[in-house]
């Protein structure tokens, strides 16, 4: 039992900051050096500490944690015959150096969906073996690292005994965080993918902005194609090119295909021409053609904002057909509310809403449910005009038609809102 553990609420835990800098003493009682790092094996929810690193003169040596006799008091005592090796330059696969790769670095707090900086680590001690349990991101962790925890605790307690500062509530379980610097083992990646897929893409996108370029790339590579596509749709133009550049072209193309065509076009429009062409080449032909058509419009016009993925129905289709169509294409469709009734040549005849369809009997023809389209825009209409029409006629989506009256796509409110909010 270490002396430090007694200071914490739970006797089996100790802080990494309490171990750092302790002298490492050999079996014969000679001081070998000072503890500078611990190496843990990743892959388990609570990674076990495999070895410790100490600085002896200019050399950084590593000994297995099993060689530790005790670490009570101010020193770590090694057993007789403990063999120290030179520490390699880079960590081995599936190994994590706690001080070098985690402490003071940014990590992703999966539960809180934000990027945080690690101030200290919380280790669990079981019969002399250590496991990495929590990450401390609190201000108190910072104070502890400065060596002032005791004094500051007394000070705070005397001023406000109920202060949130004194509660150890900002310990994040290790299994709910994502380190960003290191290359994790295979197992860790799988856990990561599953965890990250549960986050809201908007949160993921916001985190991307808080990270530096390389961390951003690391995190993005861990997302599965679907989550990556959703994240890219939400991310700001500044980071999207970084993100797409981070993954192999084949994967980037797969992600773009997964995205709504209008969003994919926006992302591609922000890339250098050469990169854009390369990715369009790699994409499946139909998707690439759709995106290419959108790319020819000004990004702030109706044509640039619209999605070609709309529900098109013939006048003779029934309400049941309409629902079946929505079900069939659920994956690719974004926001669905207005359904568009088109004549043979693709000319827009009228619209009916999802509510009309759901409320009607399943055998009723769409042609009978439809009403006149309150407003349409041309592809070159400005975003203001689209927004005004949507507001005036309470439309969730405004249909975009060309000169001949053929339906090209629709602009949905979720695409108009950011433009209006930020672009004025």
């Amino acid at each position: 039992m270490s002396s430090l553990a007694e200071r914490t609420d739970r006797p089996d835990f100790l802080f990494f900051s309490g171990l750092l800098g302790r002298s490492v003493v050999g079996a014969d009682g000679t001081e070998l050096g000072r503890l500078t790092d611990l190496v843990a094996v990743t892959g388990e929810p609570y990674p076990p500490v495999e070895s410790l690193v100490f600085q002896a003169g200019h050399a950084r040596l590593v000994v297995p944690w099993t060689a530790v006799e005790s670490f009570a008091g101010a020193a770590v005592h090694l057993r007789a015959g403990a063999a120290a090796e030179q520490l390699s330059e880079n960590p081995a696969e599936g190994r994590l150096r706690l001080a070098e790769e985690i402490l003071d670095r940014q990590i992703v707090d999966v539960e809180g969906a934000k990027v945080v900086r690690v101030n200290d680590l919380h280790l669990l001690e079981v019969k002399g073996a250590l496991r990495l349990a929590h990450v401390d991101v609190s201000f108190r962790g910072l104070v502890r690292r400065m060596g002032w925890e005791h004094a500051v605790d007394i000070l705070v307690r005397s001023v406000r005994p109920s202060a949130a500062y004194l509660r150890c509530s900002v310990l994040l379980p290790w299994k709910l965080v994502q380190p960003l610097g290191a290359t994790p083992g295979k197992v860790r990646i799988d856990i990561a993918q599953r965890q990250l897929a549960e986050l809201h893409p908007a949160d993921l996108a916001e985190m991307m902005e808080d990270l530096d370029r390389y961390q951003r790339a690391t995190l993005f590579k861990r997302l599965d194609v679907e989550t990556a596509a959703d994240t890219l749709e939400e991310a700001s133009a500044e980071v999207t090119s970084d993100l797409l550049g981070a993954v192999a072209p084949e994967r980037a193309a797969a992600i773009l295909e997964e995205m709504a065509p209008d969003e994919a076009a926006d992302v591609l429009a922000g890339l250098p021409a050469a990169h854009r062409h390369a990715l369009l080449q790699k994409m499946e032909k139909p998707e690439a053609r759709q995106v290419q058509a959108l790319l020819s419009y000004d990004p702030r016009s109706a044509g640039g904002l619209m999605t070609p993925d709309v529900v098109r129905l013939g006048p003779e289709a029934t309400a049941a057909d309409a629902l079946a169509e929505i079900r069939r294409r659920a994956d690719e469709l974004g926001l669905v509310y207005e359904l568009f009734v088109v004549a043979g040549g693709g000319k827009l005849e009228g619209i009916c809403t999802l509510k009309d369809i759901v409320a009607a009997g399943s055998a009723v023809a769409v042609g009978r449910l439809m009403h006149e389209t309150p407003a349409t825009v041309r592809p070159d209409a400005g975003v203001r005009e689209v927004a005004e029409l949507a507001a005036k006629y309470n439309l969730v989506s405004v249909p975009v038609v060309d000169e001949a009256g053929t339906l090209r796509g629709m602009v949905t409110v979720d695409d108009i809102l950011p433009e209006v909010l930020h672009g004025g």
Partner: protein
Amino acid sequence: MEAEVRPEAAAGEAPRELATPVAGRAGRARALWKNLLLFLAVMGPGIITANVDNDAGGIATYSVAGAQFGNALLWTLIPITVALVVVQEMSARMGAVTGKGLADLIRESFGVKIIFWVMVALIIADLGNTISEFSGIAASMEIFSVPKWLSVPLGAAAVWLLVLRGSYRSVEKVFLVACVFYVAYPISCVLAKPEWGETLRATVVPSFQGGGAYLATLIGVVGTTIAPWMQFYLQSAVVEKGVKVEQYRHSRLDVIIGCIITDVVAFFIIVACAATIFKVGLRVETAKDAAIALRPLAGRYASVLFAFGLLNASIFSAAILPLATSYYVCEGFGWESGIDKKYGEAKQFYWLYSGIIVIGAGVVLIPKLPLITIMLVSQIANGVLLPFILVFMLLLINKKKLMGDFRNGPVFNWIAWTTTGVMIVLTLWLVGDGVRDLLRPG
């Protein structure tokens, strides 16, 4: 770490762009145009940082230097420009290559204890600088007969709102416009009708004078030009701007142009005061004195322009310093930061930012407060910090893991270490002087 591999890979791509064959005049024009566009895309951080350098304190130092020693200190501007470029270029390069701020890098490489003390010193130094910016606002507005109890709160409110209501991009544009107003100094200088031949000679031919006052002023001029906050601000601004390794060539140009503009402005301030105040042998202690003294000597317009320049520089720097300080303190301690965040998400950031402005402006309004002492403390904090920052920067920029192929070359390293050495000696001198003045009774 992956960061290790990436810069090198990117470095391999950069020359390819350079080697694009361009045929004929049309091709050259197109290449020029393309380069200009690329430059405009990354322009900002370097020019803005360097111009904030000519803040209220800087203008005061240059005015006094010109008024007291005439053209005798002009020659220092060229070596100062070189030193400034060397230091700023490293900051921008680290920002572009690592994608991280300086506070971030120092914490990750040197630990939490070091970054804590660096941040404490930085807050003290920047608080002092902010106070001097607000006293610059007060002084320049007094020339236009606006009392300080009106100008300072208004200035503080304007600065606070500008930054909190804007986004980084819009704020940057306002800052770039503020840079243009420094043209007030060259015009003011021309109105002062200096003898250009003699002036240019004094710029390129070093001259030395004995005496403690000369040396103290020389060190003051150097000290005011390279301040620790600049390295933090520039690097963060480069990161925030999203400058990539491939764009770095253009970012470097931004830095170099900025440094040159800074010292050209300094040149005109010194020359304007040398041609007028020094010639008739007046003594001035502040930039405000200098502006007033210019009125009978160089005409009303020169005086008004001089005061206007001071006002512009003070507001400009009063907007940037608190913002920059809050940014890198939050970065160092791992708090969320950024004007794009809401108050609830980045409480520490907004408290720091507002606190620095309120204290900076408030102190100026308190009557009979020993402003000179406060300035001295801030100058000492700046001076103590600078050697550490420069050494940290040099250690970081030579790390292979961090910088890959973008580490300093041997020649550049030699120049950088020499610059650092000279800067350290001069700054320690300045600190010594400051401490002596602080302890002097009365």
